[in-house]
């Protein structure tokens, strides 16, 4: 089984070695991440879970190359990360579609920057639009779309460039519960197809267990990896699975682990 998976996707191995980050504010050092050490296999769906303020976004931004570490390094397929690149697609919580461009124009941005011809751009983008049910809305502007549709467009905008890693920072946190569940299933659907490595940041325990192959639970002060937990629920997953005993036991286990950290971060204010 495992061998088969490794063969399926050869790119997208993420290695994080001794990664630390400090921010300096008014002459004082604020240590946000300390000695992060983790390895994510190609094609794996990894979830970063932790209370708000523990440094999840910071860690993801380091992998994206938006910020630089104080110590340590990140590699993707043995290449050290020094700056942002199209090999790492990023999906923000607030969709971040350009308001003056249509769905289609937003999604083709990366392809256009890379200089792909118009016919090949159209073919690729339309294929993805169909896949996520947005073809009808290809000429709509973001303000004409619901939150769920905007987030689908923003996911496709990253995926259309065939990144080796998809980085997602609480992408469904702003959606209502119904839409969120549908988006989770849709994301898994696409991922089963593409087997792109995913690093998914969330503070929602249920979401992390439902989506992930592996959970990295983060602790606070300074941010560190507190526990690593493989999720061996069978795939493809459906929303009924969240009601299984296995799921509920996992939920309880993770909840206890996170609770301590949440209390700590609340005490610190």
């Amino acid at each position, binding site marked *: 089984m495992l061998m088969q998976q490794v063969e399926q996707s050869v790119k997208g191995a993420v290695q994080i070695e001794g990664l630390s980050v400090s921010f300096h504010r008014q002459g004082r050092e604020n240590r946000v991440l300390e000695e992060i050490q983790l390895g994510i296999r190609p094609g794996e769906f990894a979830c970063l879970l932790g209370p708000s303020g523990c440094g999840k976004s910071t860690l993801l931004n380091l992998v994206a190359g938006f910020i630089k570490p104080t110590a340590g390094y990140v590699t993707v397929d043995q290449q050290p990360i020094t700056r942002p690149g199209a090999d790492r697609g990023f999906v923000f919580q607030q969709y971040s579609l*350009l*308001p*003056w461009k249509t769905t289609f124009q937003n999604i083709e*941005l*990366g392809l256009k920057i890379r200089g792909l011809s118009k016919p090949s751009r159209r073919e690729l983008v339309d294929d993805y639009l169909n896949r996520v049910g947005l073809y009808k809305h290809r000429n709509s502007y973001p303000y004409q779309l619901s939150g769920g549709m905007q987030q689908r467009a923003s996911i496709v905008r990253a995926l259309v460039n065939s990144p080796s890693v998809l980085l997602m920072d609480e992408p469904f946190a702003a959606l209502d519960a119904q839409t969120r569940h549908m988006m989770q299933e849709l994301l898994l659907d696409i991922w089963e197809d593409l087997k792109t490595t995913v690093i998914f940041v969330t503070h929602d325990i249920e979401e992390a267990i439902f989506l992930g192959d592996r959970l990295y639970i983060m602790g606070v002060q300074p941010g560190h990896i507190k526990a690593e937990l493989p999720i061996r629920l069978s795939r493809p997953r459906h929303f009924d699975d969240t009601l299984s005993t296995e799921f509920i036991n996992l939920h309880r286990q993770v909840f206890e682990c996170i609770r301590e950290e949440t209390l700590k971060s609340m005490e610190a204010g």
Partner: protein
Amino acid sequence: MVLTEELNTPQDRFGNLLNSKHGTYILPLITTLLLFIGWELAVRLFSIPEFILPAPSAILAEIPQWGGAVAKNAWTTLVTTLLGFLAALALGVLLGFMIGYSKLANLTIYPLLIGFNTIPKVALVPLLSIWFGIGAVPAVITAFLLAFFPIAVNVAIGLATVETEMQDVLVSLGASRFEVFQKVGLPHTMPYLFASLKVAISQAFIGSVIAETVASNGGIGYVILSASSNFNVPLAFLALLALAVMGVILYSFFMVLEKRFVHWI
């Protein structure tokens, strides 16, 4: 069928007009007309003398004699205003870019601009007439001085408020610095720029007319001044009317331009 019948009640038809495209110019035209009718009636009813407040009919009666002269001077004012406005647009956008993009410019130039903006520009006109003589130049400069501040400030605000996430998205798609500006910074600034142009054109207009009443021998401002000193109040009002019409036309032009260019808001 029933639906169309219901839509034909007077209230519904008014509601339709209120929300339709035509409503945006038909309704203001109706209120303008009502204002003139009320004005005419008031003047006749209270027998207000013409040299205090002429009736609209008396103002329009000046057209055969003075219409040509007013039109010629209105043209002068229009050209003056547009010259000042164009200069303001060029320098305003340039300064706005500097302030919006450079922290140094923001800390050095911006406070100076704010200080300068608090000076009432009318106070500068006598000085301008000493430096540049009586004529069109002081008017163009006054128009420019009044118009460039809102443009510079708005462009700076537009550039400074670009969401970092949008820029990050572009960078992570492999965009260069210039592409990030072209695809995010520039379009994001457009609504701010166009909003400021509506303000700036009105300001330029005010500036040129003020200067014309102080240091000029042409333009609508000059017409009003000389008509008043000759007690030709109906002519002064005709000139005022020309000003109002020009102001509305200029403002509407930039409003339409804004709607075309900033369609996503």
